[in-house]
């Protein structure tokens, strides 16, 4: 062991690191921004879950109940008035996570000492987010009911107000975590294999010098891009089929929606993911850089898209970031088609943003693919 040699190697390595501007800067920027973004955004015990209250009772109780739920910080109550059907559709489309329904006879039942019912419907395709929220709806209802009764100086004979909260876990009644995880896993595996493989395959051509050779042949940039995508696209299809076979046979995953909707989603997401790989490869100069950039892209797709941590638990700005990531729509669409009976029309709100991302990535890639060596 020679300290001199270790010093020589460490110094040389340091020089490599700081000379490679892209790597060095992205390392620094990623470190700082990711700590801040993920530190604030990720909350495994989410608050401010989007909730719609369908109020048929329109009473002192329901007014106070809504206000108290909002104050409890667990739920974020939608100010709009909706019918039960509208609210249910919102729940199915993942535009809200919880629907609370207060029946018309709630106050009268309460006053007459009968059990008063509240119906809570929760989107159980994302079970993590809901436990705190569900327990808080009952707790708050009992407190508010007690308060309303005291105000009216009425003391029913029973020990306390009889508020009965009926919780209905929609779309995944048994609360299977597998059902919630698998759609995300499909997305993640496509991310890993397609982005990294395509990104590295083009940068490999640059490193080898074969890109220079191809550029003096009549080959067009679009031909390179499409030609590069095709084999990986087929590889992606094989992977998806394998995952689906395992999901259906081994985990008994249901497919409640339309197979066409699922196919459309997978195709759109697969091609867009390939395009991300191509885009990264046009920016990276070496395979190492391509791998790093792929990794930086994948971090937020794991953490901010609702795959690992509930979307509803993130602050608004983090939710905004996640709306720019195709994976967010893939996860919503995949959970929808597996568990919420999505047909192609239901899928559309998740398909077009993925398609838009594809166009943006395609145009940027073709622009940044250097036709000449500068």
């Amino acid at each position, binding site marked *: 062991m020679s300290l001199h040699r270790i010093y020589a190697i460490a110094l040389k390595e340091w020089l490599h690191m700081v000379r490679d501007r892209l790597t060095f800067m992205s390392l620094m920027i990623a470190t700082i921004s990711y700590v801040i973004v993920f530190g604030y955004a990720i909350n495994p015990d989410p608050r401010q879950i989007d909730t719609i209250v369908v109020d048929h009772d329109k009473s002192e109780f329901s007014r106070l109940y809504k206000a108290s739920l909002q104050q409890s910080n667990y739920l974020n109550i939608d100010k709009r008035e909706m019918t039960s059907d509208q609210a249910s559709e919102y729940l199915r489309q993942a535009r809200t996570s919880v629907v609370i329904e207060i029946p018309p006879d709630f106050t009268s039942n309460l006053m007459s000492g009968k059990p008063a019912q509240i119906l809570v419907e929760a989107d159980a395709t994302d079970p993590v987010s809901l436990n705190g929220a569900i327990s808080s709806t009952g707790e708050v209802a009992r407190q508010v009911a007690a308060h309303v009764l005291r105000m009216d100086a009425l003391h029913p004979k029973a020990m306390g107000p009889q508020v009965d909260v009926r919780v209905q876990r929609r779309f995944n009644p048994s609360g299977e975590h597998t059902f919630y995880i698998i759609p995300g896993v499909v997305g993640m595996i496509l991310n890993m294999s397609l982005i990294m493989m395509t990104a590295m395959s083009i940068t490999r051509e640059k490193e*080898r*010098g*074969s890109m*220079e*050779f*191809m*550029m*003096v*042949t*009549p*080959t067009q940039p679009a031909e390179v891009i499409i030609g590069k995508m095709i084999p990986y696209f087929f590889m992606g299809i094989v992977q998806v089929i394998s995952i689906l076979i395992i999901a259906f046979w081994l985990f008994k995953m249901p497919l409640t929606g339309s197979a066409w909707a699922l196919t459309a989603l997978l195709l759109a997401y697969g091609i867009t993911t390939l395009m991300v790989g191509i885009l990264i490869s046009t920016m990276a100069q070496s395979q190492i850089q391509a791998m790093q950039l792929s990794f930086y892209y994948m971090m937020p797709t794991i953490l901010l898209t609702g795959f690992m941590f509930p979307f509803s638990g993130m602050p608004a700005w983090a939710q905004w970031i996640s709306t720019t990531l195709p994976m967010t729509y893939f996860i919503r669409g995949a959970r929808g088609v597996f568990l919420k009976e999505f047909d192609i029309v239901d899928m559309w709100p998740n398909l077009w943003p993925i398609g838009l991302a594809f166009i943006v990535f395609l145009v940027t890639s073709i622009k940044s693919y250097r036709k*000449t*060596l*500068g």
Partner: protein
Amino acid sequence: MSSASTIIEVHDLTKTFGDKTVVDKLNMSIEPGQLYAFLGPNGSGKTTAIRMMCGLVPLTSGGGTCMGFDIATQSEKIKPLLGYMTQHFSLYPDLTVRENLEFVCRLYGVPDVRRRVNELIDQFAFTDLGRDRQIVSTLSGGWKQRLALACAVSHGPRLLLLDEPTAGVDPKAREAFWDILQEIAGTGVSVLVSTHYMDEAMRSNRLAYMLYGRLLVDDQPERVIGNSALVAVQVGLRRQLELPELVKVGRDPRVVRLSRQGNSVRLVARSRDDVAGWVDSLGDVAGDVQTIDVGLEDIFFHLTLQQQGTHTSF
């Protein structure tokens, strides 16, 4: 002068990167079937000039035509008629010889790929020892370059641009490579080949010497040597010169190039008088003086010296 049959015709071709001028007002023309050697030290701008001629690098100023098409605006028309070999081997080491050839033929849209690949395999002697089915990474440097050349001619181009194709290849393989190259040029294909090897330059029809982005020589190799007034001698030494002595005599302004051989020194000077004067200055150390041939390298040394205005060792 421009003529209808000229393959490459460039005028005042200039390329700058930032404030560095890499190619400076280059004027050159290449005739059909000509084997044109492009010489110059590393960094003299040869690669950039070649890349500009085929539209791979945008021009800063100047212009020209390649096979009748404008190099600044019509590179798409030039590419199908052009064969190109990069400085470093740039084919696919994990594919076989045949697979590489098939790939390149398909890129160029060769009609009958299988037949053409078989022709190329025969022409470039890849059938020996079944090299056509060999994975390219297991080939020697010479065979890799031969494959790159086969790929460059796969579509029957009218012009070959070869950027240092024989760098790092052993002499025997280089000779074989040039035999093929001369054969190809014999069929009417024009070849522009950059090289550091003077023996290769001597095998070409015409040569250009570039320094600091400027063209210093553009002539037939025989005429370049014939027109040179330089004199080369080999001076035997009665004893070995010590380093300070050697440095002193080497810096003599009469010396164009001085190199120490085993037991003698090789001197290139501008005239016989300069040689005589210099030999005298050695005193009793100098032994027999024998006149030897001046090579292209000596002439380029002299040109470089004139440009730099000072002695440089390479």
